[in-house]
């Protein structure tokens, strides 16, 4: 049998949940009543909150919460007076109500301050007495609802329902959050199953390509050996040699056939695997989507705390502010809601504190003395929500921000004069800048906006500010509705694997070391005709490259990332792929780690750290990075790039040579794959342009060989062929070609633009 204590403990938990609901209703009701409602509506509301107080009292009694019961009793008496019209509401009365609710709230969560309790009971009863109708100060049982049930739900049932026909409602259950969270985590792990099957599919594909190449080689060999036969006969060789030859031929033939058979069985496996990928992917995606929906909550849950907070702040500052809400029914992932709760509260405080002026100030500029702060949520673009917090106050003083930034030496005099409006507003996101003249305990420390921006960035959202001087300011947060499956770019730096969040990466490309230029001791690269700060990740992460010089490629991979309104270029040694990753926390031992936000576990079980773009940008902008490991570069003219053209037809070879030379490239030529390979091994080439069908060694084999050489792993390769079939195209790309040009359709323009793109 469950012990009585245990039972009581469960009961108490239930009471807490119920009591919170009553308290919330009371709080909402009192807030609304303070707004001078029309008489009829006001009366109804007083009646409603009277009932709430009464139910709370009943519930408290059932779990022996004498204190709460007592306070509720006193509150009920005052409300009863009010209900009967014996009380004129005053500001002092509302203050007492709020204090009462706070105290009950504390008592519910377990901390009871007896002296405060007594004080509030006294205050409440004096309110009731002041009404001059002392005899009702003692609550009369007769007036209360017929049953003083200890059973809260019964109480509710006894109350007259407003909506007459009981609507067919969706059935709901209450469930512990921990259970759902656990379920969600387990479901998220299913992502791994999907990734594993995808990897398997890819592995099969690679094997088949390998087999295809072997097949081609072997069939070529077979035909070559077959051509040997006549020469053998001519030389009048003996029967013994002839038999040997026949044996070889039989063996080659057999091998050729088994290769074909092997490829066919793998192709079958590939098809099965492909089906699995589709099947599992769709199952897992649907499951994840559905479980994400379980985690959705309406935004209104965020709105709950706001009215009370706004009231308190505005009273404290002598301001008159009304709140407006919109779009509270839009549902959002609970984890996002939790993350943005503080930023939203901060923005609202900010709006009341700095946005809206005092009634006198407002009257001076011919505005109504009462300010409005509005929070609105709108769905935008299907998978996003835009939450805006706006005020009708004085707007952000851009000049003042500039002055402040100048004083703090964040920008130079020259920069200040050149700053446009948006850029200047963004300065407010810097630590240490605030336009508030005096520091209040609400805002004005200049830290808040930075945190807002960081949180929004972290969630993969965007923050916009619109401000009109004298008219007001609007902060717009565009956020995803659900936490999308995280996509990351898998990169290698100094032989270590890392993941960079894809949402912060705006462009990926490779450059030659020579394209890094030093400007005022900072390395920069040219990106969209702008100089962007460049830093190799190995420098930020203090990694030493242990690879041999041969392995260090001449080209560097650049990832341009953007966050907190800054753009920087990061260098990496290799880019492996873009992949879906399951974000895992770094564990409790690592609360916050410089440059890393989390980690993920690969299909192989390997842990890979996920880089934190915000930290990377901050470190880079601060310039706290040591000298680059790439050699210091001079600002000299780039030498002409060399292109190797491999083509067996002399006409086409000359044509290609002409076009490319006229575009300023140096051209080398080869008539087939074998010759090309020789040139590549001995001379420096920046790009390879190759035909497919060629004698001795065809283009596919050439590309495969080239990709096998470590020094040429990243050499750009363009296939220029008349074999425009889809399979050939795919095979070429699989093997590592960078582009494919169709011989029959290509123009001078497409040829030059593809080479320019790759060089």
């Amino acid at each position: 049998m469950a012990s009585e204590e245990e039972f009581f403990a469960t009961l108490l938990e239930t009471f807490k949940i119920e009591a919170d609901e009553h308290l919330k209703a009371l709080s909402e009701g009192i807030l609304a009543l303070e707004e001078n409602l029309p008489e009829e509506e006001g009366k109804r509301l007083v009646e409603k909150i009277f009932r709430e107080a009464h139910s709370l009292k009943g519930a408290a009694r059932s779990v022996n919460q004498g204190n709460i019961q007592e306070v509720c009793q006193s509150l009920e008496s005052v409300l009863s007076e009010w209900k009967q019209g014996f009380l004129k509401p005053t500001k002092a009365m509302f203050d007492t109500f709020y204090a009462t609710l706070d105290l009950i709230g504390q008592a519910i969560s377990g901390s009871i301050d007896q002296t405060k309790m007594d004080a509030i009971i006294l205050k409440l009863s004096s309110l009731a007495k002041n009404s001059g109708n002392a005899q009702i100060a003692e609550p009369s049982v007769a007036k209360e609802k017929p049953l003083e049930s200890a059973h809260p739900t019964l109480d509710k049932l006894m109350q007259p329902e407003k909506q007459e026909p009981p609507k067919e409602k969706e059935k709901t259950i209450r469930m512990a959050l921990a259970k759902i969270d656990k379920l969600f985590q387990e479901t998220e792990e299913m992502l791994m199953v999907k990734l594993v099957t995808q990897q398997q599919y890819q592995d099969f594909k690679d094997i088949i390509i390998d087999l295809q190449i072997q097949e081609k080689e072997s069939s070529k060999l077979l035909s070559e050996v077959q051509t040997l036969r006549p020469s053998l006969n001519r030389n009048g060789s003996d029967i013994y040699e002839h038999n040997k030859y026949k044996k070889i031929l039989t063996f080659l033939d057999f091998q050729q056939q088994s290769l074909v058979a092997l490829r066919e069985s793998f192709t079958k496996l590939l098809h099965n695997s492909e089906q699995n990928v589709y099947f599992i992917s769709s199952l897992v995606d649907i499951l994840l989507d559905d479980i994400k929906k379980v985690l959705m909550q309406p935004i209104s849950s965020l709105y709950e705390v706001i009215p009370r907070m706004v009231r308190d702040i505005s009273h404290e500052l002598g301001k008159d502010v009304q709140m407006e809400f919109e779009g509270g029914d839009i549902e959002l992932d609970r984890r996002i809601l939790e993350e943005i709760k503080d930023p939203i509260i901060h923005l609202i405080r900010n709006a009341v504190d700095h946005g809206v002026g005092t009634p006198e100030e407002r009257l001076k500029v011919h505005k109504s003395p009462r300010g409005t702060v509005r929070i609105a949520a709108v769905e935008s673009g299907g998978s996003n929500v835009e939450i805006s917090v706006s005020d009708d106050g004085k707007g952000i003083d851009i000049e003042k921000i500039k002055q402040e930034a100048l004083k703090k030496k964040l920008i130079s005099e020259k920069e200040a004069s050149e700053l446009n409006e948006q850029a200047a507003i963004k300065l407010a996101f810097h630590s240490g800048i605030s336009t508030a003249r005096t520091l209040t305990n609400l805002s004005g420390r200049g830290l808040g906006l930075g945190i807002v921006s960081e949180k929004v960035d972290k969630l993969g959202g965007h923050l916009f500010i619109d401000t009109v001087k004298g008219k007001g300011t609007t902060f717009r947060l565009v956020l995803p509705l659900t936490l999308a499956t995280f996509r990351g770019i898998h990169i290698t730096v100094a032989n270590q694997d890392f993941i960079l969040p894809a949402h912060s990466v705006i462009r990926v490309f490779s450059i030659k070391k020579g394209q890094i230029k030093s400007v005022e001791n900072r390395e920069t690269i040219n990106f969209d005709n702008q100089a962007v700060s460049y830093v190799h990740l190995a420098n930020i992460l203090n990694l030493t490259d242990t690879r041999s010089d041969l392995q260090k490629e001449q080209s560097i991979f650049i990832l341009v990332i953007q966050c907190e309104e800054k753009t920087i270029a990061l260098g990496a040694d290799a880019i492996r792929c873009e992949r879906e990753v399951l974000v895992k926390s770094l564990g409790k031992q690592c609360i916050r780690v410089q440059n890393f936000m989390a980690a993920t576990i690969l299909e192989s079980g390997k842990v890979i750290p996920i880089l934190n773009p915000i930290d990377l940008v901050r470190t880079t902008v601060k310039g706290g990075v040591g000298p680059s490991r790439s050699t210091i570069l001079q600002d000299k003219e780039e030498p002409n790039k060399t292109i190797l053209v491999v083509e067996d037809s002399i006409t086409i070879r000359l044509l290609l040579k002409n076009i490319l030379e006229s575009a300023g490239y140096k051209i080398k030529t080869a008539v087939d794959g074998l010759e090309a390979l020789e040139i590549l091994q001995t001379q420096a080439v920046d790009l390879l342009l190759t035909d497919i069908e060629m004698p001795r060694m065809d283009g596919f084999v050439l590309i495969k060989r080239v990709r096998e050489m470590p020094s040429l792993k990243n050499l750009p390769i363009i296939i220029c062929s008349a074999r425009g079939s889809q399979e050939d195209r795919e095979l070429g790309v699989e093997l590592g070609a960078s582009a494919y040009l169709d011989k029959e359709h290509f123009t001078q323009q497409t040829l030059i633009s593809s080479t320019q793109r790759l060089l």
Partner: protein
Amino acid sequence: MQEIEKKKAILKRRAEQLAKPLEKTDYSEDMVEILLFKLANEQYGIETIYIKEVFPFKDYTPLPTTPSFLYGLFNLRRRILSIIDLRVFFSLHSDPKSDYKVIILENAEKEFGILCEEINGIQNIPVKHIQPSLPTLTGIREDFLRGVTNDRAVILDGQKLLNSKQLIVDETVE
């Protein structure tokens, strides 16, 4: 034949040994169960109540730009845990080895692995045999010491290690 006799003798000796009642185990005393392990060639121990499991150290991922006592991260049944190198933390001399073992420490709030060079078994030790520290054991180690056994194994305080703020990485880039 001789071989068989020899083997028989060995078996007999073993049987006799096993048949003896456990030596000197006085259950009236307060005992603690200690897992003994080697760090920087010295004998250490931690009470087994703080130990979740022990296994040979395999793959790990180092985290650049973190304090050097954080050896890296590893994957324990699809959860990511930190491995801490106490030799670095205690500033002990250490030669790199290829076959470390990992001891997973755990309490209600925390869980992490510590690297060790060798596992030397589990022992029941009477509490009174654990004497307070030796004067030579100074430095940061002192703060995490439970005492020293008769066999001069250094017993670390598992609870203190688990709750240590010094072993937590919490850094910000401003």
